[in-house]
């Protein structure tokens, strides 16, 4: 066999190997001639000169040989191609099935690869993206990681860094509550998605404005005149692309603000879509660890060097803020630097690669199926091949021709697959988890096309190379003499098809086990009570009051309360509240919380999940009260020093939830008394532990009064008519107040399982396809074997064999193949399922029950696939079978 396919592969990879051999050959010829001439008495140099003359120039000879080689290659290739097309046209049924199978496999692989490519392989659309980093902080002392920066960090790093070319700070809000600006005076009042940036951010990203100028340090100084840059999209939609917009003033958050620049059309800030405007961040007015950063490293600086640099700068920062020295020491604050791209895409890539792997396995199964079809088909062409061999076609030539046929099939399948991928990509993106970053970068680009081409070629060669193996059974002459029922050849063919079916069954088992594990994970997650009840009946939305209103918190509370009153008047509303964040919307904060009777000297307490809530928050969310009472409006409006904690927090300190009542927590300067204990809420999703949580009165944090998240419990939640009424209720309080992030609580709950359900759906699709292809493959092999053994079966029955024996014979064959496949598949799945372990919940990657059930199902499906041809075999009429020849 090596000589047979070898010829073809040599032709493909020919250039270098042939060149090398040719060089050697000619060098040895020169040596031989030189020796010959030295024997005739010439000196070595003269002999060599004569040898070269006689050879007639080494390079010319090489050229002639090359021309011959490539000429023959092209000529045979063209012949093979024509022949292949003719053969494929002659059996349209076979060609259709094979091409469709391949197109599905290649299409699915291509679509999935475009997602992986867009999300994780493509560089970010900024110059030298590899030197862009996100600077965050780890606080291992309070078990908090990857925090954003505070303004003092920014000032210190900006002034003292030796490794950053520059560092900038930006603010885009948290969780579902994205930063936005209220724009008035341009038609209807509008809530425009906005981004606060320091003046370095745009230069770091290499962005220059289309019109006007970028921010300077002056724009960032408090007290300077208010300026804004608008995005291309906003410019087109609001100003019709009017170039005289620069210098115009618009009202942003109630202040007249000058437009100083328009951003270019292709500008995109990280993953933010439909961003409307950029505002100066003014870091001197800011406080707290709320601001993300982007930095550009100096050329040649590594991430590790930059991290070391930040570590060096942290003590310098302590000099700037001596009052926080203890905090720095206790939290053991340190750097957490990531490449900007890694920071953006996070760990969702792991999920994508798992799905990619699953889809790739389907392609392998598809290839095995096509290979099997070809094997069957080639059996029918034994005569033709034998004639070609007898007429002088070399085995390599015939093998090469068959490989060309496979490649032609693969290329047609690949082209169709590309079309499928093109169509399926949108569906895939719609299915993708909502936290999938860089959706705009997903598409079919050059790398994807190259990938498809590569996959197509590999697929073609993969199943194509099975053919010469099969063809090895034909020797010159032998094929001609036999009547197409050569026993030895068909045994070989059977061995090859059985091996292919074993592979199919094995891979199908791997995929089915993976999807079954995901199903078990999903079931386990669904079984965990999230801590709230009937989330589909809770409608939530955010409003943003203009920032300067935060200076008047009493007025804000009154307005928030007025909105509640209006909403409660809507028919069908049973409870409503406002709070700093909605459970599971990733908007809640984490802060260290002290406990009066559990103070540890010189040690910070761990950070706790913190919500700031109004009364009825627990009733609206359906969070049960375990002990004590809910907050009251009296607590809220009179700022009583009270708090509510979650059950796990209470148990952690006082074992019994009711013992927590009356205990003091919070801040030693103003302790707050625990008045209630409520059930745990899985704020990080049900696959993670429920975080220990403290609920403070919302009046403790003015900032949240200005951007509250409202929640309404009503059976009408989620309907458009209901939302219209809610909108009217809000606008009757303040007609300038737009609603954002309108979602039911169920939306956040489902999102928390989005990765699991995406992987589940994709792997189940892959598993289903694998099962179908595997069953078809097995059916094909058994059916063909039955048709080949009709005569043998006839003889058996004539000699007294019973129908049951025949059935057992055929089913036995199928079962054997399926069982070997299952055994191999179990071994493979045990090895591969650990790639899933990060995604699994409540089930081990080696869960015996899953393996058992999947194996049984697979064997049953295999038996069914064998049963249909086996029944046909049982009905064989001995007389007909024997006569038929």
């Amino acid at each position: 066999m090596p000589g047979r396919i070898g010829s073809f592969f040599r032709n493909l990879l020919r250039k270098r190997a042939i060149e090398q051999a040719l060089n050697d050959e000619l060098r040895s010829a020169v040596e031989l001639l030189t020796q010959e001439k030295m024997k005739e008495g010439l000196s070595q140099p003269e002999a060599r000169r004569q040898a070269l003359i006689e050879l007639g120039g080494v390079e010319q000879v090489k050229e002639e040989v090359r021309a011959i080689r490539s000429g023959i290659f092209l000529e045979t290739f063209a012949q093979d191609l024509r022949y292949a097309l003719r053969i494929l046209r002659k059996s349209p049924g076979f060609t259709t099935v094979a091409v469709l199978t391949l197109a599905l496999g290649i299409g699915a692989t291509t679509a999935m690869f475009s997602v992986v490519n867009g999300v994780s392989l493509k560089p970010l659309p900024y110059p030298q993206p590899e030197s862009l980093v996100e600077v965050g902080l780890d606080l291992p002392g309070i078990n908090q990681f990857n925090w954003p920066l505070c303004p003092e960090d920014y000032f210190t790093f900006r002034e003292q860094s030796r490794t950053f070319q520059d560092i900038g700070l930006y603010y885009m809000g948290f969780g579902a509550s994205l930063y936005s600006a209220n724009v008035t005076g341009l038609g209807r009042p509008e809530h425009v998605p906005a981004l606060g940036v320091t003046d370095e951010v745009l230069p770091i990203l290499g962005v220059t404005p289309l019109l006007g100028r970028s921010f300077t340090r002056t724009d960032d100084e408090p007290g300077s005149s208010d300026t804004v840059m608008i995005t291309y999209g906003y410019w087109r939609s609001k100003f019709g692309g009017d170039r005289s917009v620069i210098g115009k003033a618009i009202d942003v958050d109630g202040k007249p603000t000058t437009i100083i620049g328009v951003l270019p059309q292709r500008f995109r800030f990280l993953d933010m879509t439909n961003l409307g405007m950029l505002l100066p961040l003014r870091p001197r007015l800011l406080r707290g660890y709320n601001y993300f950063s982007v930095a550009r490293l100096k050329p040649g600086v590594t991430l590790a060097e930059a991290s070391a640099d930040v570590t060096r700068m942290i003590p310098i920062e302590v000099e700037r803020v001596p009052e926080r020295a203890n905090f720095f020491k206790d939290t053991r604050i340190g750097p957490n630097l990531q490449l900007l791209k890694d920071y953006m895409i996070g760990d969702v890539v792991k999920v994508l690669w798992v799905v990619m792997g699953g889809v790739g396995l389907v392609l392998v199964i598809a290839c095995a199926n096509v290979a099997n079809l070809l094997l069957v088909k080639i059996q029918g062409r034994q005569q033709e091949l034998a004639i070609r061999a007898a007429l002088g076609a070399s085995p390599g030539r015939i093998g090469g021709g068959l490989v060309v046929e496979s490649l032609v099939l693969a290329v047609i399948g690949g082209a169709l697959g590309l079309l499928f991928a093109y169509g399926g990509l949108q569906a895939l993106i719609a299915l993708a988890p909502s936290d999938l970053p860089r959706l705009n970068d997903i598409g079919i680009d050059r790398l994807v096309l190259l990938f498809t081409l590569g996959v197509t070629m590999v697929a073609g060669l993969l199943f194509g190379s099975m053919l010469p193996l099969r063809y090895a059974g034909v020797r010159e002459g032998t094929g001609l003499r036999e009547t197409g029922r050569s026993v030895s050849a068909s045994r070989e063919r059977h061995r090859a098809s059985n091996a292919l079916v074993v592979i199919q069954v094995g891979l199908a088992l791997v995929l089915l086990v993976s999807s079954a594990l995901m199903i078990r994970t999903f079931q386990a997650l669904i079984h965990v009570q999230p801590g709230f009840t009937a989330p589909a009946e809770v409608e939530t939305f955010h409003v943003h009051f203009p920032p300067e209103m935060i200076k008047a918190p009493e007025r804000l509370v009154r307005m928030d309360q007025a909105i509640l009153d209006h909403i409660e008047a809507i028919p069908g509303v049973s409870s409503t509240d406002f709070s700093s964040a909605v459970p599971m919307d990733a908007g809640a904060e984490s802060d260290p919380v002290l406990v009066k009777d559990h103070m540890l000297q010189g040690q910070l307490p761990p950070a706790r999940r913190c919500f700031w809530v109004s009364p009825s928050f627990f009733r609206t969310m359906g969070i049960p009260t375990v002990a004590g009472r809910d907050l009251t409006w009296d607590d809220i409006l009179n700022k009583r020093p009270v708090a509510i904690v979650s059950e796990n927090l209470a148990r952690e300190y006082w074992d019994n939830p009711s013992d927590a009542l009356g205990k003091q927590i919070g801040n030693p300067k103003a302790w707050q008394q625990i008045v209630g204990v409520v059930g745990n809420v899985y704020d990080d999703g049900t696959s993670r532990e429920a975080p220990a949580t403290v609920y403070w009165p919302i009046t403790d944090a003015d900032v949240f009064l200005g951007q509250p998240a409202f929640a309404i419990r009503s059976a009408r939640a989620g309907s458009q008519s209901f939302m219209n009424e809610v909108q009217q209720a809000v606008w009757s309080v303040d007609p300038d107040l737009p609603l954002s992030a309108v979602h039911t609580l169920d939306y956040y709950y489902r999102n928390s399982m989005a990765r699991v359900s995406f992987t589940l759906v994709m792997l189940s699709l892959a598993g289903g396809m694998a099962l179908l292809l595997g069953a078809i493959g097995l059916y094909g092999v058994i059916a063909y074997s039955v048709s080949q053994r009709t005569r043998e079966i006839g003889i058996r029955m004539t000699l007294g064999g019973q129908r049951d024996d025949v059935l057992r014979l055929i089913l036995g064959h199928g079962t054997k193949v399926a069982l070997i496949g299952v055994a191999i598949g179990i071994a493979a799945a045990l090895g591969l399922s650990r790639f899933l372990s990060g995604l699994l919940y409540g089930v081990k990657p080696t869960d015996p029950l899953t393996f058992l059930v999947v194996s049984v199902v697979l064997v049953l499906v295999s038996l069914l696939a064998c049963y249909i041809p086996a029944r046909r075999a049982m009905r064989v009429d001995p007389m007909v079978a024997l006569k038929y020849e």
Partner: protein
Amino acid sequence: MSKPTGMARDVLISHSDKRGQMGKERTDLLRGTLDLLILKALGLEPLHGVGVSRRITQITAGAFRVSFGSLFPALHRMEEKGWVQAEWRASENNRRAKYYRLTSSGRAQLRAEEQDWSQVVKIMTAAVESA
């Protein structure tokens, strides 16, 4: 052996320096002659390229000296067609050299070409003598 025996014959089977014209100008008959000579030379034992050239000179009693510019392309073409198979071996002087060996289809080709050639000679002789 060291001097060409006849200009005309040498030109007859010399290699062309102009690649573009290669093959086209040569008639099939002449190319067939070279192939036949090479197959014949290899018929006795496997030989390397230089050996084939020497063997042809020998069996044509010095009448034909095949240029290497024609010989090597021909050998490679025959290898592609599967008439000969190449392998690296030590030469008579213990040098590594690429030896060509006739395959069974090469032998069949040799027989076929020998028959063709006798056929041509018979016809041509008859034609020439009839005139």
